[in-house]
């Protein structure tokens, strides 16, 4: 493409885009990355809320085991909640589906599908994704995958109930819901495969003239590494899914050991399989998946911190090298989830060493983001509050992971609430705060209107306080040895008695957290129509292309009125000689 900007402007497809697109093409089967991004955002927000609802139900059972669920208990049906009291099988389904929905249908589609789709092409100055139809196909694999997961609640035996990790051989002999879980996962994996190929090609091939790799906004780097993780880590889980489907449908024994006896009856299978094989294949995906959850969040936070401290990110190059190294290392740490499986101390040693090594780039990234604050004159906007909230929360999540990465201390903490506390600090007050930050930050880009700051601040303080009330006591319970998958929250164990009262506190926290989301919903829907209008498009006075070269909202097909050309790095705030005090990436020389 060597058209001059004038020629591009002349062939500006704005007009025909509006004429030819019917309702279906424009909003349902759209091939415009912006619409697909919004589709992903709305769908994944619904799934996030649904996954959270499942957890609120579980928290009732944990706080008040054996008492009927008020108001909605009767609506759940006799098999799920006889007499309004939650059945153990239903509790297991809720646990498995909460994890699955939050990870695969909530956070990842929001972080990658929504923010990646909407923001990345704009930040690199591309007219769209490299393969718009694949992009559409990606969403239309994701949605059926999600619907299959939802449908599984209505089959006999309920939804999958073997934990989100679906450990074999339990999952092999589980009810029909598990088969639907596997079909759903195959669809979701296909969706993420299509998406990740598309992202990598887009970033490498479609970046604007002058946008060299070291001029990428950090968010683009985070998405690039994330895409490689999705591309290379998901296929082994697909293989595992195929093997488990064969086990369940064709009667093979990939994960069934010889001589397996269930409830006193020998299982009718040839045997010879390995339950450990499932764990290896699963964690080969699921550990990189952790970084899929966190890297886009770090990218969002980096953008917002640079923008609101009004100075360049501290150590941009260290951030980039760290994120690449992190992505690479994330492929060789998976078995630290398996110290208790008896795989042997030699293997444990290898994996605890790599786990300690991978903590180094994480610390570099977090430190660089903290140091970026130093000496800045910080604007405490709502997105900035959420980004600042992310830093200590992710810090707690990361540091509490160290004892779990060392085999000796993991033996005590394995499968306790400590583990739940640890990864929820990474994902919930960590990633989800960053995702909220991203929503407040890019909302004006999508709609042309800002969200309300007051409601945003109420939302922030409510969310961060409640999240800590929910997750901090989990460390206390976990250190006391309370196991994570107990239907009654530990009532029948002597060692849990001293910490049981925290269950009520955590449950109250979870329900209050739901109330704290009300300002967000009001703000979100009200601002679409009534929010303060963005005047010149660049409402946050940012330097990156999505704000400086495209209107808000961007042009329907093609994003940019004029093809952007990049002249400098992403965060040249406080640039001397520029009238407005910062240097947009696409400003030719000192204006």
């Amino acid at each position: 493409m060597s058209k001059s900007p004038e020629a591009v402007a002349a062939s500006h497809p704005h007009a025909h885009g509006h004429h030819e697109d019917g309702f279906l093409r424009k909003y349902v089967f759209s091939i415009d990355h912006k619409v697909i991004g919004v589709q992903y955002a709305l769908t994944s927000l619904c799934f996030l809320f649904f996954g959270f609802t499942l957890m609120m139900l579980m928290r009732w059972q944990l706080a008040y085991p054996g008492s009927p669920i008020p108001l909605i208990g009767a609506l759940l049906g006799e098999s799920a909640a006889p007499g309004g009291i939650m059945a153990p099988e239903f509790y297991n389904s809720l646990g498995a589906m909460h994890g699955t929905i939050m990870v695969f249908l909530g956070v990842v589609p929001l972080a990658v599908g929504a923010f990646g789709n909407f923001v990345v092409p704009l930040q690199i100055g591309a007219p769209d994704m490299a393969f718009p139809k694949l992009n559409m196909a990606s969403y239309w694999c994701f949605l059926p995958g999600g619907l299959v997961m939802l449908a599984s609640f209505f089959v006999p035996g309920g939804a999958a109930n073997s934990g989100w990790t679906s450990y074999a051989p339990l999952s092999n002999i589980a009810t029909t819901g598990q088969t639907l879980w596997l079909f759903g996962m195959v669809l979701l994996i296909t969706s993420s495969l299509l998406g990740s190929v598309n992202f990598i090609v887009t970033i490498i091939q479609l970046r604007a003239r002058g946008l060299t790799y070291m001029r990428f906004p950090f968010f683009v780097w985070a998405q690039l590494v994330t895409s490689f993780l999705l591309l290379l880590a998901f296929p082994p889980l697909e293989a595992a899914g195929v093997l488990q489907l064969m086990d369940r449908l064709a009667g093979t024994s990939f994960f069934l050991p010889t001589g397996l006896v269930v409830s006193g009856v020998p299982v009718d299978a040839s045997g010879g399989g390995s339950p450990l094989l499932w764990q290896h294949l699963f964690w080969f995906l699921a550990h990189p998946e952790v970084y899929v959850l966190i890297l886009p969040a770090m990218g969002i936070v980096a953008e917002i911190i640079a923008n609101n401290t009004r100075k360049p990110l501290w150590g941009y190059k260290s951030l980039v090298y760290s994120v690449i190294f992190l992505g690479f290392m994330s492929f060789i740490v998976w078995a630290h989830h398996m110290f208790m499986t008896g795989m042997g101390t030699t293997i444990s040693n290898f994996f605890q060493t790599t786990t300690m090594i991978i903590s180094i780039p994480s610390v570099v990234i977090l430190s660089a983001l903290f140091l970026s604050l130093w000496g800045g004159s910080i604007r405490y906007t709502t997105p900035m509050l959420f980004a600042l909230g992310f830093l200590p929360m992710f810090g707690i999540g990361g540091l509490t992971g160290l004892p779990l990465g060392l085999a000796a201390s993991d033996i005590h903490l394995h499968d306790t609430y400590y583990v739940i506390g640890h990864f929820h600090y990474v994902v919930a007050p960590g990633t989800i705060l960053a995702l909220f930050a991203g929503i407040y930050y890019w909302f004006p880009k999508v709609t042309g209107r800002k969200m309300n700051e007051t409601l945003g601040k109420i939302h922030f303080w409510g969310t961060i306080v409640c999240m800590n009330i929910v997750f901090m006591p989990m460390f206390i319970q976990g250190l006391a040895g309370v196991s994570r998958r107990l239907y009654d929250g530990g009532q029948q164990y002597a060692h849990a008695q001293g910490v049981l009262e925290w269950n009520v506190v955590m449950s109250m926290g979870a329900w209050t957290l739901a109330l704290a989301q009300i300002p967000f919903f009001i703000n979100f829907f009200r601002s679409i129509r009534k929010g303060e209008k963005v005047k010149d498009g660049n409402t946050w006075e940012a330097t990156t292309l999505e704000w400086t070269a495209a209107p808000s909202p961007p042009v329907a097909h093609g994003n940019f009125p004029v093809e952007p050309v990049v002249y400098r790095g992403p965060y040249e705030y406080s640039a001397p000689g520029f009238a407005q005090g910062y240097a947009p990436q696409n400003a030719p020389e000192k204006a």
Partner: protein
Amino acid sequence: MQIPYTVDVRPDTGLYNAKLGIWLFLASEVMLFGALFSTYILLRVAAPVWPHGSDILNVPLATVNTMVLITSSVTMVMTWVALKLKQFGRARMWLTLTFLCGVGFMVIKSIEYSAKFSHHLYPSTNTFMAIYFTLTGLHGLHVLGGMLVMAYFLGPGARMWNTEPERYTNRIEVLGLYWHFVDLVWIFLFPVLYLL
């Protein structure tokens, strides 16, 4: 703005979009089959006894099938060469031949499968048969997928030759890369399952 580099190569990467895309896709396919081959190794190492492939499976038929697939890779390259020389008629002939090789492979494979079934050898019989059916079945699905794409480029997809010949040629090249990969997977499957 149109999406750039759908036909021409980007100067600094030397690739057009679809070519980079297919290489990335193949990388993920390597991980998929890599996981399955690892499964094979793990199950075999852990098994007290493991049958010798040639005692159960039909080596002559599989050898013929290997030849068929290798031939199809050659005809696939000839398709692309003919398109580069602007000989559309020839390219069509070579692509049809490639398609027929695919058909031949699937026919021979189904003869093998039905022979196994008639001897009451099913995926549930033992771990060896399980991994045999899973690996060859998944590979067969890949062959079938490639044939569907070929059928499209022989049928409705061929119209693109009249409007955008270079883009059509690129598409055949991308299809070829995929086809060679499917071929290569078989080159690994054959010794692992039949000979070792």
